[in-house]
């Protein structure tokens, strides 16, 4: 059995490392894709989202309000328009993403002690526009409200109490993790874990397609006498697992440091987490790859899955709000555990102990998928044996006939 393991490993090794198509997916893409994504989101935070201001009040106070929102880093006053129609035109041209409308009675109302309403109209084709326009306006209003309150309180209470009455309870907001609220620090860690799983699937699927094409539809090399499913599987795992551990280390060290992504977790916790995850992905890949019959099929089959998988992991859309059905579907994929575990590890500084639920999931998955992969390989071995009894030439003939039918 051990001899068979080495034989099968060496054979597959040669197949993988002489196949440029597979190598692109298992080496070039994992090396390059994190860099491309980091470049796309390199700006981290959207600054200076443009807005038009329609100031019907034209008063000192309205101008103060405009100055305040313009000073905020999130937005920039792009134009001051005389009426809404003009501002709307800018919006249709996508030169501005929002309109701030200050009513004619703005200053009057404030002087009379009445409430006044500032309208903020936002393009919501991206939520970030909405967020970036609303936040500075709210901040400016809170700040001005505080000062106005001080004025009002002048007549009501003594100077000493004024400061406190203005704001009896102070509050502060602390961003526990990802303190800059950067979009890349939020999205990149999940994407890295997804890249590990998806490129491994693509590479393994392509390698499997190649084996089948070379061996007339059989999943194992017809010229080799393989009898133990475990040795075949271990042989394949011995190619991908070490390779991907290296790639994961590259992502954790080079990529993370180059773009200063969060890296709170302990190095050895990361190693302890990533090895089971890579093994899990590999075993999962062995199962899925067995479904493929042609080299290029893996691209058709696996690429589109990346986007739904990102959402199923519960990072883009809050996991607490995933419908049960999709939550459990997500649990079938290693990435759901990998993404959550990695985010907790690097962005939130969790230790391996804190990742108990993810680790359990990964271990169970690995065991289940390994058994399934073993059964599949067992079947494949039986099929090859049968084919061989027919004689390799006959077996080939059968497949050729199928090919010709196409």
């Amino acid at each position: 059995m051990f001899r068979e393991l080495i034989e099968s490993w060496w054979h597959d090794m040669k197949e993988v490392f002489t196949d440029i198509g597979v190598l692109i997916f298992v080496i070039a893409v994992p090396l390059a894709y994190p860099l491309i994504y980091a470049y796309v989101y390199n700006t981290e935070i959207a600054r200076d989202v443009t807005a038009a201001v329609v100031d019907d009040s034209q008063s000192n106070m309205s101008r103060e309000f405009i100055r305040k929102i313009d000073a905020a880093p999130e937005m920039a006053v792009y134009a001051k328009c005389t009426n809404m129609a003009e501002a709307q035109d800018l919006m249709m041209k996508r030169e501005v993403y929002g309109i701030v409308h200050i009513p004619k009675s703005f200053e009057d109302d404030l002087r009379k002690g009445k409430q006044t309403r500032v309208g903020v109209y936002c393009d919501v084709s991206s939520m970030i526009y909405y967020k970036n326009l609303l936040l500075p306006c709210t901040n400016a209003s809170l700040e001005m409200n505080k000062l106005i309150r001080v004025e009002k309180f002048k007549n009501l209470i003594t100077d000493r109490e004024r400061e406190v009455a203005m704001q009896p309870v102070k509050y502060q907001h602390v961003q526990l993790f990802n303190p800059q609220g950067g979009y890349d620090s939020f999205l990149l860690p999940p994407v890295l874990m997804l890249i590990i799983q998806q490129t491994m699937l693509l590479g393994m699927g392509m390698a499997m397609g190649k084996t089948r094409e070379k061996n007339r539809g059989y999943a194992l090399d017809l010229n080799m006498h393989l009898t133990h499913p475990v040795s075949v599987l271990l042989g394949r795992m011995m190619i991908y697992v070490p390779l991907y551990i290296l790639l994961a280390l590259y992502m954790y060290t080079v990529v993370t440091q180059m773009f200063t992504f969060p890296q709170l977790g302990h190095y050895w916790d990361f190693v302890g987490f990533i090895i089971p995850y890579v093994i899990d992905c590999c075993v999962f890949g062995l199962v899925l790859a067995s479904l493929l019959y042609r080299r290029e099929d893996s691209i058709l089959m696996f690429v589109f899955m990346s986007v739904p998988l990102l959402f199923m992991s519960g990072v883009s859309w809050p996991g607490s709000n995933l419908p049960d059905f999709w939550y459990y579907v997500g649990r079938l994929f290693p990435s759901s555990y990998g993404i959550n575990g990695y985010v907790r590890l690097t962005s939130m500084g969790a230790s391996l102990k804190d990742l108990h639920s993810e680790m359990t999931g990964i271990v169970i998955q690995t065991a289940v998928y390994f058994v399934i992969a073993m059964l599949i390989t067992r079947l494949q071995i039986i099929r090859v044996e049968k084919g061989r009894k027919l004689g390799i030439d006959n077996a080939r003939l059968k497949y050729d006939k199928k090919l010709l039918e196409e």
Partner: protein
Amino acid sequence: MLSYVKRQGKRIWMLTVRELRIFIRRPLLVFCMLIAPIFCAIFFSTMMSEGLPQKLPTGLVDEDNTSTTRQIVRILGSMKTTDLSRRYPTFEAAKEAVLHGEIYAFMYIPKGTTQAAISSKQPQISFYTNDAYFLPASLLMKDLRTTSEMTGLAITRETLRAKGLTDKQIMGVLQPIVIESHPISNSTLNYSVLLTNCIVPGIVILMIMLTTTYAIGMEWKKGTQKFVYHDMAGGSVPIFITGKLLPQTVLYVLQFWMMYVYLYKVLCFPCQSGLFPMMCIGVLTVLAAQAFGLVMFGIFAGQMRMSMSASALVGVLSISMAGFSYPTTAMSPLLIKLSWIFPLRDYFLIYSNQALNGYPIEYAWQPILALLIMMVVPLLFIKRYAYAINHIDYVP
């Protein structure tokens, strides 16, 4: 002339029939062209069926536990986004809960807050959000902030009431400037409207590019490209390509239309422009995406795997480049310029002009032009295709 058209028409028909036969024998193609996009449409629309995430688990550490602090709990409890059912005895316990993913945020009220507020010592309360989870953190931040603001004001309101002010006067003092937000066309901030509308077309566009390069590349793989070109297409590259891609075009256009009916008629997402303009945009998008695939195949003449890999790269990247999650305008200047060549980016711009906002279509002339240009670019590759057919073999 008529007989010429007839002859070419017949050729295209023959190729189409042959193509349909291939579909039947390759279930994977049907999976990609039908099942995958339908799956994604159902997945994204059901996953985000609640629109804006509601009842996000939030913690509370109330060391003070007085009637005033319980009022905070009531205010927060009345908010849709927050689910404040989890209590923690200490700050550390709450932080631990964040670490374990039980809650996305928590509010911390230290001991003696009420006492300090009443005796005018201006105490401080804090709220903590976990921004490693972007969406829940930013939604909860808004709620927690409003609550904190209101907590302080509740105490001021009592003081003012004691001075004999009316409620209307009080509001004029407490909150003189009110910000009224009007998210245009999506007043409930429904995330499904935002994302399903763009991600599903994005996946269909990805599939179009992949199946275009796959279907054409298959001829090289089987070594039948010369036969199809000389014997079936009469030595004409446009006929060769039209015949091969026509069934896909029809299928994908129908899919876009079905998707619009599902989104705008069944789910009632905003469609200010009406269905017809969107259906035309669907046709334009399918053709542009196919053209993109053709250009990819032209660039890597006859190399199926490379052209598919490149299409996959562009297709997946375009979901980021389109700008519905992170705005394209915030990316680097080079990427802003490059974004025009991503069909999904152009589609997104036209969609938000038409269906979402219902603006006059002339304001979207740039993305429409971009898609139209994309459609004619493959014409530059006709010679290269002819060369590839006659001289280049399949590379595994």
